[in-house]
């Protein structure tokens, strides 16, 4: 577009055309554009990072293994277990060797992915959802809502999870056991997340930007959702990404105590627990599924780290 503000001959003082001043940036508000959005900003930030792509690729791989184990191994994990191969080393077609029962370790790890990943994800989602809802409402609204929600958390937290696991596993024994064990682990773990989030919100809700938003007449719930929660979520991300690992490992501990998944269900936790007796004579049987567990957890922790970083506007401003 050609300029139409030419310098007039009678002009005493030179005034730069508005296009040549930085003021244009102030005046030219894009009214039709989308408002800046924390989540979109985060996405723009996150996709520039290699860490994001590496961890996403790993997680994708784990998910593919979980959904289609047949792509990765032809060896049936639970058939043809021969005691003659007990704790044996790698052999043709069995790259990682054998378990105590003489089953193929590689195949069991591949086929156990789905169970372990499901337990991890279901528990994490359960803990995150319950923890965020209870924690944010309790912290933000305070008063009797805080009292009710927090004390409810106290009750759940005081119940020994072994008792809960025994009861839940027994009562629901005829249903899908992955869901049941996830429920048993998750339903008593959320109060930790809720309390940490509540504490963080107690701190954040007094910040200036919250008062500004209140002064502008933004609704309370909107303030919680748009301003308080994003600024308090960092510890929750840290805890939930780690709780993914804790959940998978908790399943192993429950197996160790005899209230876990039946041994016919393949899972890393089950295999780790079963290999524990031969920890000293055949450590590889325990270490191999533990490595699978570590890699999975590492990728989730890395992803959590990237997201947490991206969600933190202050940390971003520094770069």
């Amino acid at each position: 577009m050609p300029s139409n503000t030419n310098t007039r001959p009678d002009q005493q003082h030179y005034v730069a055309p508005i296009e040549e001043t930085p003021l244009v940036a102030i005046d030219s508000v894009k009214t039709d554009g989308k408002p800046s959005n924390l989540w979109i900003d985060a996405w723009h930030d996150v996709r520039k990072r290699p860490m994001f792509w590496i961890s996403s690729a790993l997680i994708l791989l784990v998910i593919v293994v979980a959904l289609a184990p047949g792509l990765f191994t032809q060896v049936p994990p639970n058939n043809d277990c021969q005691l003659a191969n007990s704790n044996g080393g790698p052999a043709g077609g069995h790259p990682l060797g054998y378990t105590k029962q003489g089953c193929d370790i590689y195949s069991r790890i591949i086929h156990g992915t789905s169970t372990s990943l499901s337990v991890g994800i279901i528990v994490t989602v359960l803990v995150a959802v319950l923890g965020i809802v209870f924690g944010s409402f309790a912290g933000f609204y305070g008063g009797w809502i805080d009292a009710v929600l927090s004390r409810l958390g106290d009750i759940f937290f005081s119940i020994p999870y072994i008792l809960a696991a025994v009861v839940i596993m027994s009562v629901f024994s005829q249903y899908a056991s992955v869901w049941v064990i996830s429920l048993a682990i998750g339903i008593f773990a959320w109060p930790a997340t809720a309390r940490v989030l509540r504490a963080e919100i107690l701190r954040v809700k007094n910040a200036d930007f919250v008062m500004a938003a209140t002064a502008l007449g933004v609704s309370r719930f909107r303030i919680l959702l748009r301003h308080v929660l994003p600024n308090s979520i960092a510890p929750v991300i840290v805890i939930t990404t780690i709780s993914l690992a804790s959940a998978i490992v908790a399943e192993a501990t429950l197996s160790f105590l005899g209230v876990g998944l039946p041994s016919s269900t393949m899972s890393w936790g089950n295999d780790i627990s079963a290999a524990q007796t031969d920890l000293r004579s055949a450590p590889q049987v325990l270490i191999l599924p533990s490595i699978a567990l570590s890699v999975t957890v590492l990728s989730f922790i890395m992803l959590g780290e990237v997201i947490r970083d991206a969600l933190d506007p202050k940390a971003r401003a520094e770069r």
Partner: protein
Amino acid sequence: MKIKRIGVAAIALAAAGALTLSGCTAGTPSSTEGASSSAVITTNGSEPQNPLIPTNTNETGGSKITESIFAGLVYYDAKGAPHNDVAESIETDDSQTYTIKIRDGLKFTNGEPVDANSFVDAWNYGAALDNAQLNSYFFEGIEGFSYDENVAELPGLKVVDDTTFTVKLTQPESDFPLRLGYTAFKPLPASAFDDLAAFGENPVGNGPYMLDGEGAWKHNEKIDLVVNPDYDGPLKPVNGGLSIVFYATQEASYADLQGGNVDVLDQIPTGALASYESEFEGRSVNQAFAGIQTFTVPSRLPHFSDEEGKLRLAALSKAINREEITDVIFEGTRSPAHDFTAPVIDGYSEDIKGADVLEFDADAAKDLWAQADAISPWSGTFQIGYNADGGHGPWVDAVANQLKNNLGIDASGAPYPTFAEFRTAITDRTIQTAFRTGWQADYPALYNFLGPIYGTGAGSNDGDYSNPEVDSLLDEGLSETDLDAANEKFQQVQEILFEDLPAIPLWYYNVNGAWSESVDNVEYGWNSVPLYYQITKSE
């Protein structure tokens, strides 16, 4: 967490002498017979489940203590043979009425005399329905016993004088004197009945050891026993006492042996089974005792009755490679079974007719299974129920895998989270799968492995097996006064059992134990418990 049923099990320990010799190392003074020291032996145990009253003590944790602080009429030696302790004589003409004389002048540690009433009152208490004692069924055979009404004083028990009493049974039972070494038959002082709850906490006995004062039982931690100076029976201790430490896990007790905090163990955790014999070379034991592991397929399950059931049971039995499982899963600490009893029992034989059904033969197994399929085709999964809190998972999985591989069927374990749930499902007959069973003898006799399990309507007949031929042979055997003649009848019972397979024998239990360098003369006795009284310890 593992509930171990205790009983009067006998163990022949052939290697004991050799072990004692090689157990001595430089710096440890070699023990001489009868030399006594005042050092206290530390050993493993578990928190007693019940108050320490003999008629109410039926598990290893409690009976290890009651066996040490109470002396019974008879005791069993390392080979399981009964010898008199408190009894002077036990006599009968007809195997139905017994006259029992006890030694004169014996005392409880509080000074009360041990007399005929000490036994009769204790037994009456143990048998009475209102007292609901866990061991009440041991008095079943005594005349007048009833489960339907409370009998305060059994008419079958009569005090003749201070040191003599008689026992009349409802029918002849030739092995009755053999049973008298069991915990349930110990005497109680008269003062015990004033407040049995308090007595169960601080029991007063007449045995080789006694509690180290009031409150010696430190719950969940340990119990300290010292030598009873008044005891003058055959089990006189040559050490200064016993400190029984309660362990929640076998692993913890083994770590303590390795760390030098405990002297004698009678259990080895699964993880150490492969290595403990070399780690404690010359100071360990791995020897069969009177217990057997089996699994039961109730005939009420579809496909397991009549001719088809017999074929399938035989196929299952022949499809299991017992040798391989005991070698790999148990590291050789179990011995493949050859009958329904145990090798340490008098009258045991490996070559009973039909015992070849326990031999591994995959082809024959497949063939038998196919024959059964011809009667009615099999479908579904064969499952073996077990309690997951007792360490049974690995062998159940191994058996299931072998059935899968050798029969070409689907098979798996069916774990129950707790022992209570598992036993309840068996007791009320709601269990819809095969399930693990096992037996540890109450007293060293063939009958004890057969009558209570395979007799029609017997207490522990969890598979509801019933065969009139078996019942009459059992009765005939019991009324025989000659032990060999009786055992012959019992072996005929086993011949029938091999055809019917009401339970499938797997392997015999071994006692696995080890001890530290500072103790000597360690020998494991009946029920796998070490003979503590004869252990010496250097100071």
